[in-house]
């Protein structure tokens, strides 16, 4: 039904890989966290600069996860490959979580920096829109009873979302120039002090590996879930 041969190879290949990824992610996170607190505080932002080491990687990989979702959707649509569909489905929740984390930390950062919990800054607004894209994808997937149809409809939406993302991003940036807000010190803006590069890059890598680990684990879970469903269906037929 789901072309078991390829998922089998996938399971065999990722079986040993997944724990390694988890371990690497844990080590990188630990090192990154230590580095984050060992660098000196910013002369302007003080200790709040450390939020950046959580916020920016989360935002970057929230976007990365949506790209993974969109590309997987494309393969699911064109080649009707079950593994690609499982990959798209599995990317949604970690991606949404990363995006939510970016929004949350962005708002935490905003409080000391700007004095409000939320600022309609182009970058933060784009992350919010990305989160809405995730919501739409998950809502569509969950509302269609027929699982295969829901999967394909969601794949179409994932691909449409991927194509639309740059356009929405462009419109938000254009909107931002239109309203010309007071020039904030935007999160992750240029002029990052080189002293912050080691923790920042370490955390960026840590989040990337963490996403890979989460994604692979979720795909493997999804494949197992489908196997169980197939087995149950077969059993029901034999009974």
């Amino acid at each position, binding site marked *: *039904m789901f072309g078991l041969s390829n998922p089998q190879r996938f399971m065999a290949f990722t079986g040993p890989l997944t724990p390694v990824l988890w371990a690497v992610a844990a080590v990188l996170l630990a090192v990154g966290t230590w580095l984050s607190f060992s660098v000196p505080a910013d002369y302007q932002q003080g200790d709040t600069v450390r939020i950046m080491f959580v916020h920016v990687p989360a935002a970057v990989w929230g976007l990365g996860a949506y790209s993974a979702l969109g590309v997987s959707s494309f393969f699911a649509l064109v080649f009707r490959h079950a593994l690609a569909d499982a990959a798209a489905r599995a990317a949604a929740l970690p991606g949404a979580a990363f995006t939510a984390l970016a929004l949350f930390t962005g708002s935490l950062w905003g409080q000391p920096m700007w004095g409000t919990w939320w600022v309609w800054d182009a970058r933060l607004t784009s992350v919010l829109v990305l989160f809405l894209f995730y919501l739409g994808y998950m809502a569509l997937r969950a509302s269609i009873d*027929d*699982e*295969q149809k829901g999967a394909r409809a969601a794949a179409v939406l994932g691909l449409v979302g991927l194509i639309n993302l740059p356009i929405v991003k462009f419109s938000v940036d254009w909107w931002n120039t239109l309203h010309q807000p007071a020039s904030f010190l935007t999160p992750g803006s240029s002029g990052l002090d080189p002293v912050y590069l080691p923790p920042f890059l370490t955390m960026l890598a840590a989040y990337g590996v963490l996403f890979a680990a989460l994604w692979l684990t979720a795909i493997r879970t999804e494949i197992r879930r489908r196997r169980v*469903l*197939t087995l149950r*269906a077969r059993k029901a*037929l034999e009974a």
Partner: protein
Amino acid sequence: MIHTLSISELTVSRGERLLFQGLDLRIQAGEAVVLTGANGAGKTSLLRTIAGLLRPDAGEVAFHDGDGNPLDERLARGRETHFLGHQDGLKISRTAREELGFQCDWLGHVQCGMDDAVQAFGLAPLLDLEVRRLSAGQRRRLAMGRLVGSPRALWLLDEPMAPLDARWRAVFADQMRRHLDADGLILAAVHDPLPLPARTLDLGGLT
């Protein structure tokens, strides 16, 4: 024009359930094939697959003209195939005339075809009524109008006569005979035997 419909090695499943596997079927102009089988054996799915509404897991549906040349699938379906399913595809808020006119025009013929349809299925007294006022049998006759109103070679019929009474069944049988005489092709899923000579394809499907 479609002269031959050939189905080879067709496998169709719905969700997790395999309906049929490696099915072969060939229908030629002037031929009718009756599709039988238990409920859930995949009669409707086979018809929908031939109509291009359902994607098979494997196998092929091909259309050929009288000289054996393959026809473009999209054109064969979009211009020469009628699919009459369980549902009539009628809008209850519109009048029978509007709906018959739309179905005939959309599927590709001209208003004069509509007159044939009205005559064939005794639709004249219904035309000014809204579809919601029609009985199931009347709606089916209205939907059948498009078979006559916009002539197409291949008829895919799913329990076409279920809501009809004896009188209109006879009328429809007559229309099917005319269609076959005019080198049409018919594939019909039915419970009762068709009142005309036809081969039978049994999908079985004892669960």
